């Protein structure tokens, strides 16, 4: 598998801002093609959602995508099975995003092993905060899976430092007080949290939650090392855009942050 942090650091060292688009795993028959298209559009890593019945950190768009995926019979195993070998093929590291009960039910060691066997580089578990992350993070470390941790504007500085210390791959800066979903403008908290994180870590700091347009992405990247874009891209797909059309939207983000 690709070493997530090394890969992102290498890209950053070359002066690139990091672009991490998101795909809801199992969303439709072409979801893996969307990964390939995102790779072609210049993704530095790709986040893949494993759908969960009760996604408390997600707004309407990702909820809708999750329901659609689950209704197609998508399971954690089917997502991981379809991802097998894809990262090597496209040369872009993959990070799964799912909720803790999916991990807990499978068992920490088994889940970590399955991800590693499929060539997946990292995992984001948004309802597993620092204090509860230990057993999973250790199993993930052992299997070579990077545990990406979220850091939110509500955390005091000391807590941010502890989160950065335990995070692997990159630190996921939560741009705002809220759940995933498209927003009209970049939250005022976005640049602030990125600055506070950059002050305590040299790990890549990538902003997500609510980044919806190329302009917002560019603005966020004035401080952060990169951005995650999820709902805005998934909204296009849910509303019927083709793989090529969604990839074109991703390419515009790439160009904006490169600009």
């Amino acid at each position, binding site marked *: 598998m690709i070493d997530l942090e090394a890969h992102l650091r290498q890209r950053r060292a070359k002066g690139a801002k990091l672009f991490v688009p998101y795909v809801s795993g199992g969303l439709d028959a072409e979801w893996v093609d969307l990964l390939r298209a995102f790779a072609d559009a210049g993704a530095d890593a790709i986040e893949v959602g494993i759908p969960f019945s009760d996604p408390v950190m997600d707004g309407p768009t990702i909820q809708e995508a999750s329901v659609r995926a689950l209704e197609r019979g998508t399971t954690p195993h089917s997502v991981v099975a379809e991802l097998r070998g894809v990262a090597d093929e496209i040369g872009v590291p993959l990070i799964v995003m799912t909720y803790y*009960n999916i991990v807990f039910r499978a068992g920490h060691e088994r889940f970590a092993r399955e991800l590693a066997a499929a060539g997946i580089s990292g995992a984001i578990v948004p309802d597993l905060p620092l204090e509860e992350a230990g057993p999973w993070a250790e199993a993930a470390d052992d299997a070579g899976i990077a545990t990406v941790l979220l850091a939110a504007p509500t955390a005091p500085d000391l807590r941010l430092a502890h989160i950065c210390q335990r995070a692997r791959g990159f630190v996921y800066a939560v741009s705002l007080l809220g759940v995933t979903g498209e927003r009209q403008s970049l939250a005022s908290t976005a640049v602030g949290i990125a600055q506070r994180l950059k002050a305590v870590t040299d790990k890549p700091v990538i902003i997500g939650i609510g980044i919806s347009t190329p302009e917002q992405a560019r603005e966020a990247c004035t401080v952060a090392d990169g951005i995650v874009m999820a709902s805005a891209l998934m909204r296009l797909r849910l509303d019927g855009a083709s793989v090529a059309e969604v990839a074109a939207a991703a390419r515009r983000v790439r160009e904006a942050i490169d600009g």
Partner: protein
Amino acid sequence: MALAPSSPVPVMGTPSDDGRFGRFGGRFVPETLVPACQELETAFRRAWSDPAFRAEFEHLLRTYANRPSLLSECTRLSERLGLRLLLKREDLNHTGSHKINNVLGQALLAQRMGKTKLIAETGAGQHGVATATAAALLGLECVVYMGEVDMGRQSLNVFRMRLLGAEVRPALSGSRTLKDAVNEAMRAWVSDIADTHYLLGSVMGPHPYPWMVREFHRVIGDEARVQCRELTGGDPDVVVACVGGGSNAAGIFSGFAELPEVRLVGIEPAGGAAIGRGVPGVVHGMLSYLMQDEFGQVQEAESVSAGLDYPGVGPEHSHLADIGRAEYYPVNDDEVLDAFQLLARSEGIIAALESAHALAWVYRERATMAGQTVLMNLSGRGDKDVAQVQSILDGRQS
């Protein structure tokens, strides 16, 4: 009956620093909420050891909620069942159920923390009505999340909340019932954390909620123990209560947990039996028994009572089941409807369908408890359920 020698870790005492009851509990929330949970825990610890806060809480319980609630002896029904049945009458509280205890406690705490707005989830509407009531009493803003399906089933409670000045927002995701209302309330809390307190309605959710909500309901068990001794000269053989999230059961159990000869029995709906049918899992911030599929997707509960329509259960109940201190059994909807009618006809009390679960078990197991004293928590009154029961019973006749 002699008190038990004190054990090293008191049963139903304070959870561990990481919010565990045995292996259950914890704080599995998005990072954004962690500082809010920590702030709440600190505020609760301070308030609960502050005599001024306790006095204010007790004053409200006495002068507003109508406490202490009565302990009623069921003469006719006892004779029929062949045991001595005592009812702890939480149905006589203001707003019609035990829910008011927790709501007044948390609303006072929110006010003390400088919060100006309450958000809450509700299933049948009892907790939502209670929260709207407390908000009106203390002059706080109130938003209640309720599954769209439940809003249809309990439209009178929706109107009640609005009458009390609360805003009711539909939860449109998933099964559009209680589970989804909790999801929606948590999402709202993530978005609006600074001046908002999430007033969770049961002994569930992330630490400190399961512990804090149980403490606010401890008054049920404390009163009942004293009342029972006054009435019968001793402790009951069995204490029984219905369990959805498990707040009324936790409240009454906490008064008797240290008396090892008193059986503690929790009754779950067969369609929502987290302890009976679930396996350990994590949802809504806690590790507890949870109805889920082989992949960890949470299953939807199905029960005649919307208030017990919940696939999880409070983590302390999972612990009490694990260590064998409490027993949990399921009853089915038909048994519940029979018990609902039995209590109405033999004692003149229309119970909430939730509470009727406990009586359904007493009825089924009456022979095994012959001659014993059984204390049942009558957690709420059944006015809200009358129309639903009518339509079910009419349907059976046609």
